């Protein structure tokens, strides 16, 4: 069980709603509620905003494709033993 109460998207201010829209566009998926991580990052947009932009820059296509980078991300998550 999460150690914080994950708020519904509707509870967040307009500045956070922009992060949810960006999350929906990034995953190209119409979530009923934004993923837990998106809601966590939206709790403080001064942290979540630049963190999300850094992630987007790192994951965007370049020398490696988005798919290849998703595999790298999965491997890193595995080594960090993170189920999420």
């Amino acid at each position: 069980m999460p150690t914080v109460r994950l708020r519904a998207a509707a509870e967040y201010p307009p500045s956070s709603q922009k992060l949810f829209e960006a999350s929906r566009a990034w995953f190209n998926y119409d979530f009923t509620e934004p993923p837990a991580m998106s809601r966590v990052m939206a709790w403080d947009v001064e942290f979540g905003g630049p963190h999300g932009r850094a992630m987007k820059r790192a994951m965007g296509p370049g020398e490696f494709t988005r798919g290849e980078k998703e595999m790298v991300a999965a491997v890193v998550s595995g080594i960090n033993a993170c189920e999420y």
Partner: protein
Amino acid sequence: MTGDALWYEAAQVVGITNALNVAADTLDGLEAVDEASAPAEARVLFAEMRDFYQRDAIPPGFRFIARDPTYAAEVWATMRHAFADHRLSRRLKESLAFAVSVTSRSASGADFHLSEMRRLGVGPRGVMEIVGVTQMFSSYTKIADTLQLEPDMGGIAPEDPSPAPGGAPRGDGSLT
């Protein structure tokens, strides 16, 4: 990037990379094999490695485990197979191994696989891409763990019916 085979190959790379890094980074108490006086089997192994990597390089850890050449030969056969071009390219596999090494704080592994990435044509931008992904997901994972978040994104990936290597297709068997 669809198909179980890709993930099996990635898992093989992760496993054998971690195995070699564990030995390379912790066995300083063991004397490394002196190649000049090593048994012929060990020298043959080292020659195979230099041929595979097309440079004067022995993957970290092998100089320790080559004290048992029969064991080292089996580990090398595993590593050579895991890193060869199959469904995943050798370039991507070395990049995965670099990410594994950075994440597990293996300096020797990071150095070796970074050299291989560069040899296989990954440029400075590509290296930074892998560093960026590794950093960002080292952040996300720790945030998720600290807050004990439960997985909730499984639904965004479609089910993949493609077979594992040697296995029977699942579902309609189509390769997408």
